[in-house]
């Protein structure tokens, strides 16, 4: 059985390092109210991973408690990975703060495992502490140093271990001390593992190395302990077939680890492929058609390259540079796949749109006018696939679906998007919500329409208003959509004002109608005037009010009472009382 030499570098304090506090401070990083990482000072004070916040604070009263920020950890780890990648390819990120490297090739090149381990430790230190030790460590280190001051003191935070197999290397890293990488000699892995307790399988620093679930492993370790098997050596001495039959797959996997047989090899991350296709136009294209022609050829090329990898493009940026150095860029998104023809069309529309804005000089949006004023002849065209996914084909409906109509409509909408921008063409979907603006989700055409709020597809047009339903009479099913109390039933208004229009609702004596704290109207409405100087119309009917209190527990909450009013000229309005004024929210036109 061939074994893969692996190197694991691990910064156990990485969550603390990212927070920017020096090691001399007592810091604990918590997740779900449990300590996940501590600074060395906090460790000295007795704070242990896994304890609750209150226990940790009891042990160490000066403790600085931070919430874990996984995103920041991953982001800050990236420059470190890049620094190692400069030195050796095939780096696998196990988790933020931990990386693995297939060490066979690099260790030969750098003169042995020990030299390689020392070099990796030095590079990580340099990248973390922002003191580049050489050209290798320079990349990205400014970032880290600039991002959080006070990290200079984190020298030697990195533990490095080399062994046969990823798991043993991780364990070696955990067992090593800062500045002294632990190198398990070739073939000595089983001997290295034998005296270790089975409990290392559940230690936090190794979880990323194990493919089995943490809970399953914990249960296994617990069971083995009760059976009297406490060390890896004990476990490894059992016959594999018996382990498999008694402990199942998880047990068999753990058994292989204990025997020093690698569970898996370092995969390395694939280099991010560069799909960008570009062409220089020299001399610059005078004619729009020339640029379009080049763009179309690029479209074919990019599509061919993607198709060669079994991919399709779902978002593509068309980028044009002009002789004045202006870069025009616009992204196109399509929830289906973009074919070569479709890409070519978008390139053409885009170039035509820019050229038109340039010539006419009166683009619809301010951004386009700026672009137009500065644009010149096109010198470079680039197509940048921004989102790709595996090409899993597309299934058309068997009966009745007129695919032609849909593609014609798509083309028309994309055409308009090229003229006015992707946000100009919207499609809507209904979602849950209390007022009529909330109930509609508008997304630019081509974006996925995923309602953010659940709700019945359509407001109920029958039945009494939800607010007045007797208690328990009309309960929604437990797993059904939420009921959105406060919604107005019945016919929906055909015109919904994006910004409410001021109105005056007066009673018979000409004084404004108020809504009291119990949500009732102070007087019978008699006259309605729109706008500040509108002519009052007699009110022929009204209903409500429907009180609506939203998010009163936080800033930005609203408190409204809504009333439906019909007037003598045959119109009907939805009015809202807010901030002691009446507003027209919608018109039943």
């Amino acid at each position, binding site marked *: 059985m061939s074994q893969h030499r692996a190197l694991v570098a691990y910064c156990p304090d990485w969550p603390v390092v990212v927070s920017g506090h020096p090691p001399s401070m007592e810091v604990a990083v918590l997740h779900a109210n449990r300590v996940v990482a501590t600074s060395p000072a906090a460790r000295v004070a007795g704070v242990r991973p896994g304890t609750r916040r209150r226990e940790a604070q009891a042990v160490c009263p000066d403790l600085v408690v931070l919430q874990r920020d996984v995103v920041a950890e991953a982001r800050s780890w990236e420059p470190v990975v890049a620094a190692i990648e400069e030195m050796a390819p095939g780096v696998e990120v196990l988790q933020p703060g931990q990386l693995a490297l297939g060490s066979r090739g690099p260790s030969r090149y750098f003169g042995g495992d020990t030299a390689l381990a020392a070099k990796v430790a030095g590079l990580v230190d340099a990248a973390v502490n922002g003191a580049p030790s050489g050209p290798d460590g320079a990349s990205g280190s400014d970032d880290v140093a600039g991002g959080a001051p006070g990290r200079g003191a984190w020298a030697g935070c990195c533990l490095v271990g080399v062994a046969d197999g990823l798991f043993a290397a991780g364990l070696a890293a955990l067992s090593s001390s800062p500045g002294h990488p632990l190198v398990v000699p070739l073939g000595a892995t089983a001997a290295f593992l034998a005296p270790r307790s089975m409990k290392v399988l559940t230690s936090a620093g190794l979880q990323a190395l194990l493919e089995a679930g943490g809970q399953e492993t914990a249960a296994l370790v617990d069971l083995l302990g009760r059976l009297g098997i406490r060390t890896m050596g004990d476990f490894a001495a059992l016959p594999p077939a018996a382990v498999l039959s008694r402990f199942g797959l998880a047990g068999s996997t753990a058994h292989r680890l204990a025997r020093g047989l690698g569970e898996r090899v370092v995969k390395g991350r694939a280099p991010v492929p560069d799909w960008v296709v570009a062409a220089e136009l020299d001399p610059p294209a005078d004619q729009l058609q020339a640029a379009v022609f080049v763009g179309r050829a690029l479209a074919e090329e990019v599509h061919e390259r993607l198709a060669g990898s079994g991919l399709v493009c779902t978002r593509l940026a068309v980028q044009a540079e002009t002789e004045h150095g202006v870069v025009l860029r616009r992204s196109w998104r399509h929830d289906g796949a973009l074919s070569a023809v479709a890409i070519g069309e978008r390139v053409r529309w885009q170039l035509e749109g820019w050229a038109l804005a340039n010539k006419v000089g009166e683009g619809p949006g301010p951004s386009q006018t700026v672009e137009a004023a500065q644009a010149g002849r096109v010198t470079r065209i680039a197509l940048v696939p921004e989102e790709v996914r595996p090409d899993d084909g597309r299934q058309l409906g068997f009966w009745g679906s007129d695919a032609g*109509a849909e593609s014609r409509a798509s083309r*028309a909408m994309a055409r308009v998007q090229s003229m*006015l921008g992707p946000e*100009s063409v919207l499609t*809507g979907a209904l979602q849950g919500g209390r007022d009529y603006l909330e109930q509609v989700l508008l997304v630019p055409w081509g974006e996925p329409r995923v309602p953010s709020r659940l709700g019945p597809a359509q407001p109920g047009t029958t039945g009494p208003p939800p607010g007045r339903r007797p208690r328990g009479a009309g309960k929604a099913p437990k797993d059904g959509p939420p009921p959105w109390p406060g919604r107005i039933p019945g016919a*929906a208004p055909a015109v919904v004002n994006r910004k409410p229009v001021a109105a005056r609702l007066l009673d018979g004596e000409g004084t404004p109608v108020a809504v009291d704290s119990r949500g009732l109207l102070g007087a019978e409405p008699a006259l309605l005037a729109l706008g500040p100087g509108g002519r009052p119309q007699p009110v022929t009917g009204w*209903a409500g009010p429907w009180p609506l209190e939203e998010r009163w527990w936080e800033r930005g909450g609203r408190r409204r009472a809504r009333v439906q009013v019909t007037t003598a*000229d*045959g119109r009907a309005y939805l009015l809202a009382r807010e901030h002691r004024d009446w507003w027209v929210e919608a018109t039943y036109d």
Partner: protein
Amino acid sequence: MLAAVGRGRAAALRDWPVPGALLARDRSLPVAEQMAGLFPERALRRGSTVVVGRSRPGATSVALSLLSGPSAAGSWCGVVGAPDLGLVAAAQLGVELSRLALVPVPGERWPVVTAALLEGMDVVLVRPAGPVRPADARKLEARASERGTVLAVLSDAWPGAADVRLDVGEGGWHGIQGGAGFLVGRELEVVSTGRGAASRPRRARLTFGSGTSRVRARRAEP
């Protein structure tokens, strides 16, 4: 005997849902059943222009239910202008939102946008923000008739020659009285005038809402 079999087969073939055949046969788009009486062909003729007068209340609802027939039958519709269109109402009236494209703020270039949508949609509803140049109106009408698309205009002052013009007359609400109930539905009287076969005024009383009488689409007869 043979003839009977042949007839049965022909009937079966006629009901066979082949989209291409349906499109080739139909020179018209279905319209909501209660509005059928307003059109001489009892359907929307492809390539025609329908203007809905805006001065009276209810025009937006009438325009939306104009879209509902084709939309429910599988057509794509576009709306240019009208940033304040209530899509909940549109869905209630029977417009399929997944086949509805909105260009809420087309700006000064609304004629170009409308022309682009006329290329791909079956019905395009336009609500111009300001006065319309007669040349633009003529061009759009010509484009619609060339592409076989219905151009619906929600405007009082359309300088073109509309094939059908719908004007909303008297109307009333029900479901609401002094402080009780809620707006359940409405009735609107609509008068259609126009050119050619549509020149004879036709009237229809449309009902909207009221929970049960949702405007329903109906396939046009071949």
